[in-house]
């Protein structure tokens, strides 16, 4: 074929994202419900899903706000969780074409799932597949959030429903694959960053957070736990 990608690339990305989009839709519902339960209102979670478009960071911000943390703490926690997008962006950068707006659009629609779908192996990424998959996942995430905030109120008392335990459960579900697989880490950081340092960072992070909880305002222990990532510094050579 003279033109191997083109329209087909976008459609391929969108189709490949559909099975994941079902899960993302459900994930979006839980975000809408939980964000509403911590008093974020109905509109803000939807706007955040459309603009920030990053699950774990949005849940972290909601969790910090729900615990009474300040705006600064919530923002820092969310942005630290999104720091991983810096290296992900670097991996796709050489394959993007077009001007500033096109690059910004690709960057915005790059989430873990669309990044993984668009990977063609050997350090190659297909920007059309990335865009198609990103659009599918974005729609599912925003739609799920809308459903969540629409029906969240009907659910009743968040504590009676055990929604406070849903937060840590969700973070555990996000953490588990990061400990399980080292595929992503090796994709851009070389084989020396494998499962063990991630498990060490996780245990250290949890310990720092628990130790600081009695002495610092809400949210601060979570940000300080990020210091555990500095063990990655000693891993040169």
């Amino acid at each position, binding site marked *: 074929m003279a033109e191997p990608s083109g329209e087909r690339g976008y459609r391929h990305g969108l189709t490949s994202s559909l099975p994941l989009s079902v899960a993302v839709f459900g994930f979006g519902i839980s975000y809408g419900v939980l964000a509403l339960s911590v008093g974020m209102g109905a509109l803000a979670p939807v706007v955040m899903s459309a603009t920030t478009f990053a699950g774990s960071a949005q*849940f972290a911000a909601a969790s910090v706000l729900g615990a009474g943390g300040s705006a600064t703490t919530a923002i820092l926690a969310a942005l630290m969780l999104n720091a991983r997008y810096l290296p992900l962006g670097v991996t796709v950068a050489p394959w993007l074409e077009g001007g500033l707006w096109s690059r910004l659009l690709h960057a915005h629609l790059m989430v873990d799932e669309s990044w993984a779908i668009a990977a063609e192996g050997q350090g190659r990424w297909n920007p059309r597949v990335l865009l198609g998959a990103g659009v599918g996942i974005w729609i599912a995430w925003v739609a799920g959030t809308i459903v969540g905030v629409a029906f969240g109120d009907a659910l009743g008392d968040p504590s009676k429903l055990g929604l406070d335990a849903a937060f840590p459960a969700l973070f555990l579900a996000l953490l588990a694959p990061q400990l399980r697989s080292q595929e992503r880490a090796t994709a851009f950081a070389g084989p020396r960053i494998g499962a063990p340092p991630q498990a060490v960072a996780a245990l250290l*992070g949890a*310990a720092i*957070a628990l130790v600081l909880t009695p002495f610092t305002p809400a949210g601060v222990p979570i940000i300080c736990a990020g210091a555990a990532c500095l063990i990655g510094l000693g891993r040169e050579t």
Partner: protein
Amino acid sequence: MTTVWIVVIVTGVGTLALKAAGPVVLGGRPLPDRLSGVVTLVGPALLAALVAIGTFAEGQRLVVDARVLGVAAAAVAIRLRAPVLVVVIVAAAVTAGARALVG
């Protein structure tokens, strides 16, 4: 209300900056090795901290309550490769059930 919107706007702009730094600023250049080594570990460290705080913290106190059972049940569900929504529902249901039984 204002606090929430500040968080929404600043997090949104900051996230796009992080995502776009590679494609717009760095072009095709790679990150320094040391930086990427550190950045890959921020996620696990913060997520584990969020699990710990969400399970044991009540304000500034550390407590053991019904949430522990909910999170333990969630761990089992994750082990069985349940979808995230199922994991969340299991955790909430077990916690709510434990509270209903005790209180």
